[in-house]
């Protein structure tokens, strides 16, 4: 078996009396889309935060490309090639679409602390940013203020910014949320192609997308992974059907 790109080893996290993550060990292998599903409040976003940085697990470790990154800040994990999109947009809303993309390129391949020269001057960084916008279909909107974009376009921009990092793995928290049928379908097609570049840990409620994309699925309920397996295995798992898909066994 190939080495996983990303893995958690027995991660636990509590908020007071609430156990949001309970001894979670999951991994992400090269070339795959690993979907993480579970009901609202199951602890999916909490797990993502511990993987991407920003929330420190109480116990357990996070491994990324063979390195223990548990103690590293989010920006350090990003520098190592972890690309992330959020459930709730974190874009710089007052900035233009292009500025958001250039910020990603700067973080990935430039010097964001440079005080001379123009950030948006033509060159390798700008090309990188524009290329990412072209890929998600936002090139036409590059001069628009991000706050003027539609919800769906903002989601696309989040993905574009993650692309500028040329990540070694993606972690995406509900990228389809609020996209509508056509939008979901387009993004599903896009992510399908993206897995060849870097594997994706995908939190998603849209089950059509999950079943269409996932190589493996993990089911999280009350902070616990109750099953991991291929689409077929998960579909047939009676415990999953009962706990999550809402069927009477």
């Amino acid at each position, binding site marked *: 078996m190939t080495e996983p790109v990303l893995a958690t080893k027995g991660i636990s996290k509590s908020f007071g009396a609430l156990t949001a993550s309970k001894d979670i060990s999951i991994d992400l292998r090269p070339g795959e889309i690993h979907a993480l599903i579970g009901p609202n409040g199951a602890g999916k976003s909490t797990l993502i935060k511990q993987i*991407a*940085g*920003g929330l420190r697990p109480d116990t357990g470790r996070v491994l990324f490309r063979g390195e223990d990154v548990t103690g590293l*800040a*989010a*920006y*350090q994990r*990003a*520098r190592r090639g972890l690309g*992330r999109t*959020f459930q709730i947009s*974190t*874009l*710089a*809303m*007052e*900035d*233009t679409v292009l*500025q*958001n993309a*250039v*910020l*990603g390129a*700067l*973080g*990935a391949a*430039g*010097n*964001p*602390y*440079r*005080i*001379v*020269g*123009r*950030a*948006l001057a033509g060159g390798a960084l700008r090309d990188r940013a524009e290329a990412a916008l072209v890929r998600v279909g936002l090139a036409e909107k590059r*001069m628009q*203020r991000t706050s003027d974009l539609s919800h769906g376009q903002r989601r696309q921009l989040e993905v574009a*910014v*993650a692309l*500028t*990092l040329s990540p070694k793995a993606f972690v995406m928290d509900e990228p389809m949320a609020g996209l509508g049928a056509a939008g979901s379908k387009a993004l599903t097609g896009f992510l399908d192609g993206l897995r060849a570049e870097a594997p994706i840990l995908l939190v998603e409620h849209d089950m059509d997308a999950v079943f269409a994309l996932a190589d493996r699925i993990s089911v999280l309920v009350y902070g616990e992974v109750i099953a991991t397996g291929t689409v077929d295995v998960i579909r047939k798992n009676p415990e999953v059907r009962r706990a999550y898909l809402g069927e009477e066994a």
Partner: protein
Amino acid sequence: MNREQMFNAAMIGALVIVPLWAHLVDEPFYITLATRAAILALAGVGLNIVLGMGGLISLGHAAFFGIGGYAMGILASHAQSYEPILMSPFLIEGTKFMPVIWLVAIVAAGLAALVIGALSLRTSGAYFIMITLAFGQMFFYFAISWPSYGGEDGLSIYVRNGFPGLNTLVPIQFYGLCLVILILALGFSAMLARSAFGLALNAARQSAERVETVGIQPFRLRLMAFVISGMITGLSGALFADLNRFVSPTMFSWQTSGEIMIFVILGGVARLFGPVVGAVLFILLEHVLGGLSEFWHVYLGLLLLIIVLFARGGIIGLIAGREAAHD
């Protein structure tokens, strides 16, 4: 040119023409007013880097303003008394040479900003405001209780410091010097805004998470901004002291921090010329209203309230509208 650029150009024009006119009709008082405005504007340009670009509400910028002032006061007082500042292990003498004074002011304020920033930028929101305020007050009380440099009474400098090729005692010449420095600082500030650093700092203000997600450390951006900002405000402190030929602990007071913040907000936070418009307005109000009533700050407060409630972009926002997105 868009409306904001036209307005900015007009502002520079006024800052050149009005004092020149005052010089021609021999009204040096107005030149002094303009000099005060230019120097305060410079302090505001410094504050605007953390406040406008960084979104950091520092109520401690008087610390840097005062450090600049005391850098001037200490160096010049030793020069006028011919007593060295330090005898051993090596000799350090005072100076009345402006470029050296400015350099010392900038470096000292920058170092102070590095320390204050490193400690206070770990916090945010109200804690950040309180910690910066506390640092400012620390300097204030230190200056009051430091008898070798005048303590509460401050320090007087008899003759304005010198600059090669100029007679700085001639008001219009000293004003010209201050205006050139202000314009350079504005140019620097414009450069920052368009740089990679400016883009990242602006983004960190809007969403620290966003910046971290692309591998950039918000703390480092903010600390850099804080140091650059402190340096500029420190330089303005040195000039302010030179204008008055006097330094006192008042420069360190929280009222000073508050006034700088108030006129930046009046003029327009995060707008290049916000501090300039704000400082000019502040000086005009102080002059006009201050002549009518000693409680002129009440009117200033009212104006501030109106601006904050109804014109978030300050005066510049009212005149030039929402800031154009950069190309």
